[in-house]
Every structure is written in structure tokens, then in C-alpha cells.
């Protein structure tokens, strides 16, 4: 009797690029149309699979950037130098191109409105992406649960979703940036790495949930700092992106 393939039959869907938006010089958002998309929760991600003509395949995970909206799935991709997949997605792929996606996955790192507030969101670099999905979901739902975002980026030009974040302030949402490599003239925001000192100033006492996302070293430093400040480890949710994406 022939063997049966268990994996791969039911879970991959075809996604077609409907639009591409430039977020920063190295970051693009792909607006995908995914037939049969079941909807997703903010914070979830997808696995993307690319197949070359000779059959070579590469897979990467990307956080969904958009709030759930029919068959639309937005992925924000940062170009990683010498990467394998991100150069394709940010420099080659365009409208009409297709890829396969698996998901949505990730029930651990999701915004659950039932948890209440206040909520702390700490993102490093492209770690902002799933946090942005959460804030977009919150806005779409007209939710006013108190939330605070601390976003660490190298410089002002590297801040993804800049205008949208500025427009979102208020209605219970605070946004703070720390620009660690260079700051624009007249900058009055933070410029230190996200450490216990900075979190002591920014993190709300008694958060209901803290979401931390970004490169692995960033996530580990922030999560331990939060614990050292007395935050309940059980309320901290982390998503590590590894050394870089690719």
C-alpha cells in the first residue's frame, strides 16, 4: 500500500499580491489577496513559501500587519541584507505575483480583548509589525482599553507606520519611541536601548498583558527587565524573530 502524505495537503493557500506599499527605505508592505482566508486575530503570523522554477523552495514566517478584513492579508517585510526571501519580497515581487501562505497561526501571541488593560506593547525594529496589527484591531473595534506602545528603532526614518501611529495617539493609546542610533534635530523622545531604566519610566504599573516582539536579543532583554521590575511573567507574551529575518 502506498504511503500517505500527511502534511502539506490542506494547509497552504495561494496568495496574490494586490498592492505594494513602501513604508521606509528598507521596508515594504505587501497587500495580499488570499482566496478562502478564514480571517485572523491580531498578533498571528503566516508562513510564506516561495518556489523557484526549478523547484527550489524557501519558507519564512511573517507577522500579519493588518486587522482582519475579508480576504486581505497585509505583510510588512524588512529587507535583510544578504537575505534569501526578503530581497525577493521587497525588490522583485509585485502586483499579480503569487506565493503560498500557511496560517493564520499563533494563538499564544494574540491580543485578546477579554484580558482588558492596561496593555503594554514593546517592539524592536520589525517587531512592531504584529503590535501594529493589534493596534489596528483595537482601533477598528473602537476599543478604548488603555494601551502604551514603546517602539525602538534605529532612526526616525526607520520608524514603520510613522504617520499612522501619530494619528492613532489618544483614545487611551500612548506612543513612545526610542531612537537608538540617531535622532532628528530637536528630538525630545528617548534614545537609550530599552532597558529596565526606560521601562521603569514607560511601563504602566500592573499591566494586564505585555507583548514584546523583535530580534531575539531585544526580546530577551526586555522580558527580563520587565520581570526584574516586578511584572508578572505570566502576563508577558514574547515573539522572537531570531537574529534577523531573511
Amino acid at each position: 500500500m502506498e504511503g500517505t502524505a500527511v502534511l502539506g495537503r490542506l494547509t497552504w493557500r495561494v496568495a496574490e499580491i494586490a498592492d505594494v506599499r513602501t513604508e521606509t527605505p528598507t521596508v515594504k508592505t505587501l497587500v495580499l489577496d488570499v482566496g478562502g482566508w478564514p480571517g485572523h486575530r491580531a498578533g498571528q503570523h503566516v508562513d510564506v513559501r516561495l518556489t523557484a522554477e526549478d523547484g527550489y523552495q524557501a519558507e519564512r514566517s511573517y507577522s500579519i500587519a493588518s486587522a482582519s478584513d475579508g480576504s486581505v492579508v497585509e505583510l510588512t517585510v524588512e529587507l535583510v541584507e544578504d537575505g534569501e526571501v526578503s530581497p525577493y519580497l521587497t525588490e522583485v515581487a509585485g502586483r499579480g505575483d503569487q506565493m503560498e501562505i500557511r496560517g493564520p497561526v499563533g494563538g499564544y501571541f494574540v491580543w485578546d480583548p477579554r484580558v482588558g488593560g492596561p496593555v503594554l506593547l514593546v517592539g524592536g525594529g520589525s517587531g512592531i509589525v504584529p503590535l501594529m496589527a493589534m493596534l489596528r484591531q483595537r482601533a477598528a473595534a473602537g476599543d478604548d482599553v488603555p494601551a502604551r506602545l514603546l517602539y525602538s528603532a534605529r532612526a526616525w526614518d526607520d520608524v514603520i507606520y510613522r504617520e499612522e501611529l501619530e494619528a492613532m495617539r489618544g483614545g487611551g493609546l500612548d506612543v513612545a519611541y526610542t531612537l537608538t542610533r540617531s535622532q532628528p534635530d530637536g528630538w525630545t523622545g528617548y534614545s537609550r536601548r530599552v532597558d529596565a531604566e526606560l521601562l521603569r519610566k514607560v511601563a504602566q504599573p500592573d499591566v494586564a498583558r505585555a507583548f514584546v516582539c523583535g530580534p531575539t536579543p531585544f526580546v530577551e532583554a526586555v522580558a527580563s527587565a520587565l520581570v526584574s521590575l516586578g511584572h508578572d511573567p505570566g502576563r508577558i507574551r514574547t515573539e522572537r524573530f531570531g537574529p534577523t529575518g531573511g
Partner: protein
Amino acid sequence: MPPIVSRGFRGRRDDSPPDRVPPGQYLTRDFPVLSAGPTPHTPLAQWDFAIVGEVDGTHRWTWDELQALPRESFTVDIHCVTKWSKLDTVWEGVSVDTLLEGVDTSAEYATAFSDGGYTTNVPLEDLTGGKAWVVYGYDGEPLDPEHGGPARLLVPHLYFWKSAKWVRGLRLMETDEPGFWEQNGYHIYGDPWKEQRYWGD
């Protein structure tokens, strides 16, 4: 349904000369770091390499003793089961033949064991006859901890999971005991030229 092709996607690959690159493999210019666990950091003063199991007597070398053994510098191709191959990698270390000199055994198999608990099994005849080394230098430098330093096993004619990082010894055995990955889907032997990646291949 065949997978959807993404127009224009090539991936980061070099052209693969078929006589050098086994089936299903792709050439890489970098040296991917793959690990089953955190990097161990055994101080050299506490490090040793031992040949144990189906042997008489003690066969153990401290770091200094290993360094004093005849060393070889050599160039080989390596092939990882995750599909990358790297050609002309340059290593420095001690041949397993040297380590087995004077070791009496009826064993036909060996299990390499490492700091951190990793194991992998190899037939003894695949570790001898100039086919395997305990290496401590890569590309003219001391072997990086993330690549298995201070020393790793190197068995280039088999898939690279057999080249155990952070190796601390060989247990000589009369039976072929599946190691860390061989117990869970990976091929017991692992010949890249026969594409022996998984059970049943």
C-alpha cells in the same frame, strides 16, 4: 497540486557542479549555524576527549594532549541535510585513525557524544581510513563555539549532522545505536550521494 511558482524567485544559490554537489543540495557561500541547543562553554582546563565502551584501558586526552598529537590540515566539501553544501572547507585537527591507534576493540560501531547531550552514530569503518577527524581549527582560525568549538567531529562523506559539534568522545559499540536525530526520522547512515536523509530513504 504542484506548488505555485513565485515569478522571479531564485533564492540565494550558486550554480552547483553536479560532480561535487550531491542530489537535492544547493551551494552556499556562507556557513549557516544550526544547533540543537545552547552553545556549551566547557573551559579547556576541564575539557577532555575519551574513547570508551568496547575498549580495554583508558583512552583519554586533555586539550593539551590533543594539541600535541599529529595534526592535519585538509580541505573537504560538507553537506547538510537541510540542503546546503559548502565546498572546499579548510580544517585542522587530528585524524580519528590517530586516536584509535593502539585501541583494541571488536566494536563495529561508534556513538559520538557531545557537551549538551547530543549523540550521533557512525560505523567504525566510516571513521577510519582517513575519513574522519576531531577538528579544532576552521579556515585558519580556532573553531568558533557556534560552529562546534573547541572541537567537533568531522565526517564529511556523510550528512553534516554526523559531524557532532562540541564532541567529547566516541563510545565504541557492537551494535548500531541511533543517536539524537537518528532516533527521530533521520537516516541511520546518511550518505548524501544516495540522498539518505530520512528513515526509509
